[in-house]
């Protein structure tokens, strides 16, 4: 008898009681036969049927999920291919100079990506600088310090902030935040720190600073939520060990909790950055949409996403459309790079031993 058969027998015997139960009333009525024959035939039959049904499910299900998985990949590859094909006229026309040129002149069909790339990176960078301390601080409070009755309502409110549609944040930014940035913030910065190139130029309100602040508001909830979860996942034994050594609360958090969940925190920041890079509507409303590269945070600029959203519907001509699609390709590559760097960082940090304990 082969091993396979043996397994099958064990399986069917093992399942007999369940099969008898599933087979329903008929078996329950035939109690007497059960007493006389230890292995009634009927339950064994239904067990075989169930097994057949199961094995069909087992055969179909993996293939079905495989189709779905392959479809996802096909969609991804399809997007890249279509982007490449549509961007071809611009790639042929401009080559590498596309990345170094600061032109965006639909009349003479001269296009370059540099100001858009610069604006995308700068506004996201400002957003991160503001959002990281804010959200990590909030996450520490929510996971380590807050009294229990505050924790869940406060976390809920933070997540609620993430649910606000970006166009609404954009409108709020345009009508509430921008005037506020123009008057007290930019005029004060211009007065006191105007000698720095960062804070020169007329205070329009709209510009990189406004875009960065809007982005910070939009990515704070996601960074807070993810880093709070990462801190919650730190085993209590870590904290208890620190306390046992006589550490204060601050020492426990800074030496045990934060280093332990470093990779989680980096993941949180990268998730936020990915959202900031691709954010379109809110940024379009407050960044001022000027295709310029200046060091001043006060000056209007543009991002890749807002440039595409603004101009795609009315773009005409192969080169113009191709340039917009090539911008999309650039954004695709930037987000890809960000994700790869994040993955590498997380790998490196998880393989290196936690220091400071």
């Amino acid at each position, binding site marked *: 008898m082969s091993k396979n058969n043996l397994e099958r027998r064990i399986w069917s015997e093992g399942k007999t009681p369940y099969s008898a139960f599933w087979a329903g009333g008929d078996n329950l009525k035939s109690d007497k036969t059960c007493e006389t024959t230890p292995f009634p035939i009927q339950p064994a039959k239904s067990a075989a049927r169930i097994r057949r049904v199961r094995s069909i499910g087992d055969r179909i299900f993996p293939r079905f999920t495989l189709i779905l998985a*392959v479809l996802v990949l096909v969609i991804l590859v399809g997007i890249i291919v279509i982007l490449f094909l549509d961007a071809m006229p611009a790639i042929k026309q401009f080559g590498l100079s596309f990345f170094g040129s600061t032109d965006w002149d639909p*009349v003479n069909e001269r296009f370059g990506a540099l100001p858009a790339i610069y604006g995308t990176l700068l506004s996201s960078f400002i957003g991160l600088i503001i959002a990281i301390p804010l959200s990590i601080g909030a996450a520490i409070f929510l996971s380590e310090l807050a009294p229990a009755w505050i924790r869940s309502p406060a976390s809920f409110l933070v997540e609620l902030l993430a649910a606000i549609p970006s166009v609404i944040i954009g409108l709020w930014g345009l*009508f509430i935040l921008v*005037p506020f940035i123009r008057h007290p913030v930019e005029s004060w910065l211009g007065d006191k720190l105007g000698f720095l190139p960062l804070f020169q130029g007329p205070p329009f*309100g709209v510009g990189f600073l406004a875009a960065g602040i809007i982005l910070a508001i939009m990515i704070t909830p996601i960074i807070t939520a993810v880093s709070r979860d990462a801190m919650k996942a730190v085993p209590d034994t870590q904290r208890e060990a620190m306390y046992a050594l006589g550490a204060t609360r601050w020492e426990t958090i800074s030496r045990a909790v934060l280093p332990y969940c470093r990779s989680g925190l980096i993941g949180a920041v990268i998730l936020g950055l990915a959202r900031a890079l691709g954010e379109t509507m809110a940024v*379009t409303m407050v960044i001022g*949409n000027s295709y310029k590269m200046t060091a001043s945070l006060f000056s209007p600029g543009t991002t890749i996403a807002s440039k595409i959203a*603004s101009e795609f*519907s009315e773009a*005409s001509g192969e080169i113009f459309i191709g340039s917009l699609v090539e911008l999309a390709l650039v954004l695709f590559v930037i987000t890809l790079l960000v994700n790869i760097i994040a993955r590498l960082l997380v790998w490196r940090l998880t393989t290196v031993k936690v220091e400071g304990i």
Partner: protein
Amino acid sequence: MRKLLRNLVTPVLLAIALVTVLSACSTSPAQTTPSGSPASSTTTTSTPPVSSLNGAGATFPNPLYTKWFDEYFKLTGIKINYQAIGSGGGIQQITAGTVDFGASDGIMTPEQQAKAEAAFGPILHIPMTSGAVAVIYNLSGIPSGQLRLNGDILAQIYLKKITNWNDSRIKALNPGLNLPDQPIAVVHRSDGSGTTYIFTNYLSKVSDEWKSAVGNATSVNWPGDIGAPGNAGIAGQVKQLPGSIGYVELAYARQNNLPWISLQNATGNYVEPSLSGTTKAAEGIPLPDDMKIMITNSTNPEAYPICGFTWMLVYVNQPDKAKGTALANMLWWAIHDGQKFTTPLDYAPLSEDAVKKAENQILSLKYQGQPLITR
């Protein structure tokens, strides 16, 4: 390993098949359309009742078109679906033959025209109404219509050559006004737009410097400061930023009571934007038969200088007799009875001259060489 491969083959094939079927579905309407026939239905039997027409294009006339098509449905029972996807989109759709008519605030470029005509033959620009672009500003204490500018100075402001409100050239035009020592913040549309097309067309006509440095298009390389999305975006910026200047559709400026400038027209008169000034812009000047003309900087003494037609784009050779007849009848109605809906919605009615030219265009529509309607 072989088992793994065998397991992989079916799903991969299935996935590819699915994708192919999907993409075939999405492209088939364009492919199955016989050449020389935009959006034809396959029925070629004698004039079945037409229940609907499809159009797409400019957003600027959308409120008027919506009203028109609603009224026209009540009159005739013909449903007209209009998608306001922008002038560029309208041109693309009619070129691809996916709609019965396109709509645009700008004239098709020679390349666009060549592409469309290569596909389906000659294409007409039939004027439907005209609109004006108001230049709005934010200067405290100077009420609407009081500030006077001319085309050259407006161009200099948008070129960032004049950067302060107390510039002597602005003062010279406004001796009675107390202009502040305040930098001018220039606001423009960040999205491609027919409004921008008309505005930059005007600036190109009045300033050679503008024409060579920036030019005329739905989206240009702005020297100026701030880009804002849509009429509402510009109005929002100008309202809250002291010292700013921007441009919006006249309808939008009127409905929101935005202060606008009086602009010197080609004959030297200062004119506030108005519907009558817009209609006048097309009067007393020679209109070409194909109506592909920008009426900016009109030589009519009462004309407001920044205005333009908005057109429907229609192929001369209609592929389907019933649909073509319905389309021609609708166009005829729009340029006659439809004109009474323009003024209440802040659009300018067509001038008599323009209506006559449009009539001739509509009468020239054909099905297999035969005119579709006669009057």
